[in-house]
């Protein structure tokens, strides 16, 4: 079966000269125009052309995005329907979840959320104009966040990165070229086509291009990734995606990586005090594990349970595992649903069942599984865990959980909150980037930091315009300047 995806360059839909590409699953393929034939039109030729979008206020941009959100309705937007049809086949998520994600995609564009994002992550004053900051030496430093010419290398496990990328690009007043992933070449294009239908000449529409080329294609990337054409590269995805890009990184190009991450959970001994707490923790943990069918970086894979590793401790952990398994099965289909396991994972789970004294397994088929470690360490294949396969690891000492955290850890869901406060600094020193009440791992505060940084601030160019009055700030040549108590702001 073939799908067609257009190339979109700044509000214009480009067709013709198509190439065919395989998608990642089930042999499906899609066609899209050959980017190499349009490579010279892809970067913004004149950086001064960013002036139009800088002339808009944040409120005007929010109004456009909110109107866009109202058009992104799965029941009546044919572009979104097409993207959904393609994503159902390629994403690895079950139909119910994909439908839910596309049906609620428009909600991400709510004015209140975007306003909060712009103000929290950057500060609307800095986006809308120059903000005067008086310095101690009398200089007035006017600061403004400007947009930049950027390439976003998108990941395709869920449609949100496409939508979030468009929002981030618009509020930072940047010009973005989205390089779409082969397992979701259509979502970003569907949103862009909706924008074109609304207003092809709107500056937000005009500063977004959507293209697919095979990652690593030198004919495209050597032309594009040059400091006179691109200032920022925002790259989602793993080592393979970064390896291609790293060749082009040089002074003048800023690389912002959104690495693949793994998340985990810690359930403190308080959860095992009585049945009610245990049940509460199991229901919350089920969500952190199984929402999006465990396809997202925020999903928990390994859970450390502070039950102890003596016989009573193992019994408590195993009982908690049964509650967890049942709680996962009870989740509504829009959150999570049974789906066949990848062969490699299914066989790892089966191998444990056959030959390991150190693990028990509940489930193991399409319903998912809970692997109960009977030793205080996770399974070796923990990075493979997905499609609702969790690993519970009993521990005597929370230190084991703390030391398991690395720079590849993203979220850690913790129960109860008091334990989170007690552990958080130590978890962060080891590499954790986000701590969250158990049960809320997949309900991220998206207007907050991301992966241990503030990507929106980094997507901007932070410019200073310094005003100095010689009667207040003496010239460097003035005899007064050399005796000035203030540090000399010389750049050697």
């Amino acid at each position: 079966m073939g799908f067609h995806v257009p190339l979109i360059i700044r509000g214009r839909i480009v067709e013709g000269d198509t190439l065919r590409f395989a998608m990642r699953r089930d042999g499906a393929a899609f066609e899209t125009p050959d980017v190499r034939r349009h490579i010279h039109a892809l970067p913004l030729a004149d950086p001064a052309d960013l002036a139009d979008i800088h002339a808009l206020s944040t409120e005007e941009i929010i109004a456009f995005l909110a109107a866009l959100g109202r058009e992104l309705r799965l029941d009546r937007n044919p572009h979104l329907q097409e993207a959904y049809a393609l994503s159902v086949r390629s994403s690895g998520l079950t139909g119910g979840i994909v439908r839910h994600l596309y049906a609620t995609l428009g909600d991400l564009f709510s004015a209140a959320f975007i306003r909060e994002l712009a103000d929290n992550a950057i500060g609307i004053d800095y986006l809308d104009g120059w903000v005067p900051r008086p310095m101690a030496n009398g200089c007035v430093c006017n600061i403004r966040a400007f947009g930049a010419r950027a390439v976003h290398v998108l990941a395709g496990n869920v449609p949100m990165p496409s939508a979030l990328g468009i929002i981030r690009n618009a509020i930072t007043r940047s010009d973005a070229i989205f390089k779409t992933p082969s397992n979701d070449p259509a979502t970003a294009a569907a949103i862009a086509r909706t924008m074109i239908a609304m207003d092809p000449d709107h500056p937000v529409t005009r500063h977004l291009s959507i293209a697919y080329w095979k990652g690593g294609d030198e004919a495209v990337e050597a032309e594009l990734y040059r400091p006179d054409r691109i200032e920022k590269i925002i790259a989602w995805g793993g080592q393979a995606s970064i390896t291609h890009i790293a060749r082009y990184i040089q002074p003048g190009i800023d690389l912002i990586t959104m690495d693949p991450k793994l998340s985990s959970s810690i359930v403190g001994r308080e959860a095992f005090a009585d049945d009610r707490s245990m049940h509460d923790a199991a229901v919350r943990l089920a969500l952190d594990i199984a929402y999006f069918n465990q396809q997202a970086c925020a999903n928990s894979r390994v859970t450390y349970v502070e039950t102890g590793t003596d016989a009573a401790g193992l019994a408590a952990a195993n009982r908690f595992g049964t509650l967890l398994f049942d709680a996962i099965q009870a989740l509504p289909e829009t959150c999570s649903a049974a789906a066949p396991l990848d062969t490699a994972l299914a066989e790892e789970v089966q191998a444990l069942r056959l030959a390991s004294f150190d693990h028990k397994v509940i489930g193991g088929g399409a319903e998912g599984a809970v692997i109960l470690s009977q030793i205080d360490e996770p399974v070796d294949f923990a990075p493979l865990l997905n499609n609702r396969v969790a690993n519970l690891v009993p521990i005597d000492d929370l230190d084991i959980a703390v030391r398991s955290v690395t720079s590849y850890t993203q979220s850690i869901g913790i129960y109860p909150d008091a334990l989170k406060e007690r552990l958080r600094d130590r978890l962060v020193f080891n590499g954790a980037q986000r701590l969250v009440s158990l049960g809320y791992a997949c309900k991220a505060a998206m207007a907050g930091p991301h992966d241990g940084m503030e990507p929106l601030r980094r997507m901007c160019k932070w410019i200073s315009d310094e005003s100095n009055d010689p009667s207040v700030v003496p010239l460097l040549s003035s005899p007064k300047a050399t005796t000035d108590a203030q540090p000399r702001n010389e750049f050697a």
Partner: protein
Amino acid sequence: MATISADRPEDWIELPQAEIYAIPLADQQRLQREALRGRFAQLVDRIPMLRQLAQEQHIIEITEIADIAPLLVPHSALKSYPMSFLENGRFDRLTQWLDGFTAYDLSGVDARGCDSIDDWLDLLDARTDVRVMHSTGTSGKLSFLPRGIPEMHKMVSGQRRQFDPWPGERPLLGVPIEAAPVIYTQYRHGGMAQHRLLPFLRDALFGGDEDMIIATNPTRFSADVASISGRLRVAESRGEAGMLKIAPRLMERREAFLRDQARSGEHWDAFFDRITGRWTGRTVSIMGHVPALHVLALEAGKRGLSGLFAADSFVAAGGGMKGHDLPESWRATVDHALGGAALVEGYGMTEIVAASRACGSGHYHIPAWHVPFLLDPASGESLPRTGTATGRYGAIDLNASTYWAGFLTGDEVTLHWGDTESCACGRIGPYLDKTIRRYTEKEGGDDKITCAGAPGAHDRALEFIVENTGASA
């Protein structure tokens, strides 16, 4: 023709090709069915892993060949031990785990004193009849297969049988197997299948004469280094190489590694001295694969050597001629150095005692002691045992009497069952096309170096250890 019995399937491999490939298909299937019934009954209570699997699948006896399909073990089971056993030197626990896969009782083996995998392998060799074979570990973890002494002898038989004559086909080796030294393009010692085979070949074919085994490197392929090398490769592919922890024992062995690396040129000199002193222009049997043959040819070229062996020598070229990252001229370089002997492809795996060699029509024929299965790669369901189809390959080796030799590979094969069509070479029974590939390759992420890549990976791991320990010294 010798009579063969379903009670002793381990004898079938002793039949010459002219006999085993002449058994009518219906008889092959009857014999296999009965032999499978016997093997299962004999092993199900002696091998804990098999007992568990049979219980899960509710199988109490085998009545049809197809009954075995649910009892094929994914190859990942052979690496289902926790990695921490190796990292923390828990070789007692590793022994306990291995005990689940073998009919031998390993409970009396005290491995608490072992501090490396090599040490552990040596201990099992000394104290038991198990000869553990490890994988290259390219997935990040070594697999351990507990082959027993009885199956080791069957490996030798398999080696012998590949040189049986077949009408209309050129003999693969121009002299009797006992007259041709084994040239091994790798480390002389180690724990992988071929390393394990060499001493048995030496004793069975050459009366214990070590001079008849000529390896390009006289030292040991360390399982510990292989383990590091696999983990390094996986860590690198994830961008986590900086996080790899090296066991203290390997750190201590750094000096030995350094010395060995520095002697690589010397090893080659000594190798060619042994060849030119006695074997130039004569018929030999080379156990190799294309990249290793290429390296050998380049080393020969550096020393001005060419036409090393007679053209009726046997040259095993591993899994095939394609897919190597070699210059186009590799074939000419190899032919010039070796003297023009044909390169012979084969299909085999550690779990099966002997490889199949490509026949005159370019197929791999499956002898009756090796029972094939074909599964749907997505559902895992058995495909019908008739006609021709492509799917995931599984097999059981009826030679195995000390471990359960029913495995699911990661290979995609095209299998002809031999009932609706037959190969032009005249062999009766199922056969495979040469177009064999790994599913991981097909899915785009080839995370597996075949044995062809292992020595290179081994050397890279040595470099890593050397650099690492150098930096921290």
